[in-house]
């Protein structure tokens, strides 16, 4: 099949170029490692550069394809490949943009963070392979490819969390991440088998067609849909499979925590959006009539519970990284609003608001975790008190962290303000007042625990024992770039949101 990109007729697989770039970069990393198996500091720089440039290229190519309208209604319509197993449309490109930008930031920061560590080629290759899985998850259009892509992103992540294999925290984090991950993936695949039992199909569109509004085996299908939802709860760190998140994020190397909590979460959400909206729209009652399997209510419950659990647990933490981990659970609850309020008349707006929140979240949350990486590099400890008076020694990084935290809380200093406002408007449009109230209450609560860090950094007196000796350039660059992006997304939000809304409307 032939599609047209910017005036040129090319084969349809060219639209997968961002993913192919990531694959090529990971193979290149392996190749460099083969040529120079015991890397000195020079080849470490090459490895980090290949990873950063590769993911940046994936980000730019996906952005270009999105801008010229590939896969969207105004140009070609969704590009479907391999008998409908993969599809490239506005939504998949939008999420590849998120994954690519987060991966580039993480790779840039890892260069300084990993200085002096062994096995760096393996680290970068695993990051790129996981990113490949995540970008493919955005395109998966069948339960089979969905599961394969999900595992492709999960398996390297388990290994990445255990990267410090002599560190008990890292190993323990990886063990817990793996145990919960293995359990939830078997729940997911059992759910898939039940959906197959009820419909006899695996491709999303064919499942919807076969089920219709009144499926024959509604009971079996209902159990299957709930189990699939639980499987995705793991990937997006939502209740009830959220309890791995604080452990894994705390024990893992901080750039890996940033990667998992931003990119992996976004990839889980795009797959959940596509699956539930193209495979189960009619059984969920979105086409009107009584739902046979009311998954919308299930998602609403999960969204509210996830928001409260994440934010209340974050408020009680003593360690900054753990607080960020629970706040990441809370943000999964905010993003779930996109599915929970989907019955609104303007569903493209509701889903688009969630997508925009994930885009902004990709920068501000990655930045916040990278600041923690910086703090770990300085060896200043992990609790709130350890950050006391840090601004006297590192004002630039502390200013960036302040931007991240206030933007995460939803103050008008970064894009997080508008994306939360849109989510609130989405709940109002759907008339789901409980969701809106939960969003407001939790945002107010989150301001409390985010301000604790800001207060420690700017207003507390330093205890004078910590002396910062070095200012790692690449880590600093990554933090500052993320901060600039977060701030720029405030005025530029209006430029990007139409593409999110268009991409979201393409699913209905």
């Amino acid at each position, binding site marked *: 099949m032939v599609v047209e990109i910017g005036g040129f007729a090319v084969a349809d697989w060219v639209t997968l170029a961002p993913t192919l770039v990531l694959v090529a970069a990971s193979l290149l990393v392996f190749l460099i490692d083969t040529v120079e198996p015991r890397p000195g500091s020079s080849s470490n720089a090459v490895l980090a550069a290949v990873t950063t440039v590769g993911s940046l290229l994936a980000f730019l190519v996906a952005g270009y394809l999105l801008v010229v309208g590939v896969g969207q209604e105004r140009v070609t319509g969704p590009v479907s490949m391999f008998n409908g197993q993969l599809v490239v449309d506005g939504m998949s490109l939008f999420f590849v943009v998120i994954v690519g930008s987060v991966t580039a930031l993480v790779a840039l920061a890892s260069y300084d963070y990993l200085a002096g560590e062994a096995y760096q080629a393996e680290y970068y290759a695993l990051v790129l392979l996981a990113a490949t899985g995540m970008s493919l998850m955005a395109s998966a259009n069948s339960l089979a490819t969905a599961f394969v892509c999900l595992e492709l992103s999960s398996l390297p992540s388990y290994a990445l969390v*255990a990267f410090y294999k002599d560190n008990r925290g890292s190993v323990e984090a990886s063990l817990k991440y793996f145990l919960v991950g293995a359990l939830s993936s078997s729940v997911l695949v059992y759910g898939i088998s039940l959906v197959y039992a009820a419909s006899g199909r695996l491709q999303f569109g064919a499942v919807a067609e076969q089920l219709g509004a009144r499926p024959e085996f509604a009971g079996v299908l209902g159990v299957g849909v709930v189990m699939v939802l639980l499987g995705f709860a793991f990937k997006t760190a939502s209740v009830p499979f959220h309890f791995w998140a604080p452990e894994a994020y705390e024990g893992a190397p901080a750039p890996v925590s940033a990667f998992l909590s931003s990119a992996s979460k976004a990839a889980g959400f795009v797959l959940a959006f596509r699956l539930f909206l193209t495979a189960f729209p009619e059984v969920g009652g979105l086409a009107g009539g009584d739902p046979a399997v009311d998954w919308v209510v299930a998602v609403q419950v999960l969204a509210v519970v996830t928001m409260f659990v994440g934010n209340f647990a974050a408020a009680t933490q003593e360690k900054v990284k753990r607080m960020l981990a629970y706040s990441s659970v809370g943000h999964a609850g905010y993003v779930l609003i996109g599915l929970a309020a989907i019955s609104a008349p303007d569903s493209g707006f509701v889903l688009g608001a969630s997508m925009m929140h994930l885009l902004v979240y990709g920068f501000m949350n990655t930045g916040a975790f990278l600041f923690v990486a910086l703090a770990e590099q300085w060896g200043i400890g992990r609790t709130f008190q350890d950050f006391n008076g840090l601004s006297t020694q590192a004002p630039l990084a502390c200013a960036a962290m302040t931007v991240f935290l206030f933007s995460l809380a939803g103050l008008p200093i970064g894009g997080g303000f508008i994306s939360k406002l849109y989510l609130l408007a989405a709940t109002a449009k759907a008339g789901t007042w409980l969701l809106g109230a939960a969003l407001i209450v939790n945002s107010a609560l989150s301001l409390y625990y985010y301000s604790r860090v800001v207060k420690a950094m700017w207003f507390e007196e330093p205890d004078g024992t910590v002396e910062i000796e070095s200012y790692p350039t690449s880590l600093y660059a990554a933090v500052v770039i993320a901060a600039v992006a977060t701030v720029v997304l405030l005025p530029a939000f209006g430029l990007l949101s139409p593409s999110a809304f268009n991409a979201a409307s393409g699913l209905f």
Partner: protein
Amino acid sequence: MAILSEFYLLLSAAVFSIGLYGILTRSNALVFLMSVELMLNAANINLVAFSFHYGNVTGQVFSLFTMALAAAEVAIGIGIVLVLYRNFEDIDVTKAATMRW
């Protein structure tokens, strides 16, 4: 005479439950891995049985994918259990609890 598809559902549900019971009650990491295998294979029973029921091979092909991925998952899992043993001198999953829940 062919066996009714409903019986396969019962069988797979039983196998899945046995696996889940193993995960919830055992603390040995290797037994945990075996239990996960049971749960994945319960899904395979469904996929193969309903592939026959509907007369297409989609489910059978997907069950091959599931097996391959289960093997990959166990490979990673064994690696993690190995470093667990090196760091904690045990493969009891409840021993690795230095972080607060």
